[in-house]
């Protein structure tokens, strides 16, 4: 599959093995710039592995991952791609402000920009708290602020909304949509189906393979299902019948 010209992320026949077992078994996709793509699938389906391959921290067996025209994880991408891991990757012995200011500084961003990112994730009132003393959701938001502050062209988020207050979840999704509108490309993994409708495109991952790569509306239309949960189930049953 030749990369489409406006693909921000192009994955071609990616194979990842872990412990001798295939985790990703030849997946390919094109993710257009300025879109929000949802990566859905049950836990253990390979979502995190796929995401790590896109940011270039995953050892791969074969296949190619190209981001903004460069091989994933290479030097030119390190100031343009931001990655938010599933478990908040922040320093527990630093305050929220110090954490975000540190990651901001690595990209030449100022302390006031760091404070802006903290406000945007709704952590302004907790800026001086040590990260160790935060709740799980607050840690996630701090980790997110560390990525938002650099205004990345590609933002890769691994289950960013787990355990968050519905109001904050709503606000974050609005921000993700806003970033895409400004031209950023977002890849967001989730196992919550109700978030899928907020994406421009969905990748459904199951047992290391994509079983769907489509828009939410087309996915519903193709399966005749009322919601995406049902559409996903429908696809799995079809596959099982075919085997």
């Amino acid at each position: 599959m030749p990369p489409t010209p406006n693909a921000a992320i192009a994955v071609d026949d990616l194979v990842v093995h872990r412990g001798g077992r295939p985790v990703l078994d030849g997946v390919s996709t094109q993710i257009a710039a300025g879109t929000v793509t949802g990566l859905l699938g049950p836990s253990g389906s390979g979502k995190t592995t796929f995401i790590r391959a896109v940011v270039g921290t995953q050892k791969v067996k074969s296949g190619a991952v190209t981001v903004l025209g460069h091989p994933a994880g290479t030097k030119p991408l390190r100031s343009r791609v931001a990655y938010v891991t599933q478990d908040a990757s922040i320093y527990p012995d630093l305050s929220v402000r110090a954490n975000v200011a540190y990651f901001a500084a690595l990209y030449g961003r100022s302390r006031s920009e760091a404070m802006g990112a903290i406000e945007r994730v709704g952590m302004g009132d907790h800026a001086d708290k040590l990260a160790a003393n935060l709740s799980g959701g607050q840690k996630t938001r701090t980790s997110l602020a560390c990525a938002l502050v650099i205004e990345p062209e590609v933002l890769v988020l691994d289950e960013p909304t787990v355990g968050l207050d519905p109001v904050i979840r709503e606000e974050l999704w609005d921000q993700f949509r806003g970033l895409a509108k400004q031209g950023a490309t977002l890849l967001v993994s989730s196992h919550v189906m109700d978030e899928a409708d907020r994406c421009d495109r969905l990748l459904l991952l199951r047992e290391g393979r994509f079983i769907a790569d489509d828009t939410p509306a087309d996915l519903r239309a193709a399966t005749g299902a009322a919601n995406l949960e049902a559409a996903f189930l429908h696809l799995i049953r079809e596959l099982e019948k075919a085997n």
Partner: protein
Amino acid sequence: MSLRITFITAGRILRQLLNDHRTVVLILAVPSLMIALISAIMDAAPQVFDTVGLILLAFFPFMMMFMITSITLLRERTGGTLERLMTTPTGKLDLVCGYAIAFGAAAAAQTVIAASVAYLFLGLETAGPAWAVFLIAIVASLFGMALGLFVSAFATTEFQAIQFMPVFVVPQLLLCGLIWPRDQMAGWLQGVSDALPVTYAVKALTEVQVNTEVTAAMWGNLAVVAAAVLVATALGAATLRRRTN
């Protein structure tokens, strides 16, 4: 490598350390207390204390840097921040040098306090200048850092990292000539001792102890320790992987 990112990283690591008040107090006070204890034990033989106290002045920063580097870096590896940093413009050398600067500053503060206590209050005497002792202690501490960096790759928990202490630190203490003269050890043990960098730090200290002027032999021995720092740092940096399984 970027000097700017190196200093940003060093600042972050120092801030982490300073936020942990109890560790700061332990780092600054414990070596002085230990050396005071040794001095009290050897009250009847001040010339023995001159040797033992002097060696400990370099050994404590070495041991402390080994411990705090191996554990801090292990946390960085297991906490996901290392993986995150590997996706930022931070280079491996930026990170390693950031650690060296931050913990090197901690080792310097520790050594200044311990050396002041030893020289001013415990009657430590050396023929050579105190600044040479300080320099040797700093280089030894950087070796501890580099070794801790390397070793952190082989530990998966903090509990394991602590267990590496007796493996990597204690043999160097036992064989460096502190508890038994090297020339009275079995030949093969002298061979092992010759291969351990801390031995050369002790040789350099001995030069400062007996000569009023700084000798070429001191510089030579110090250069061996400095070379060991570079080798261990390179090995440690090689364990920082951008791509993992």
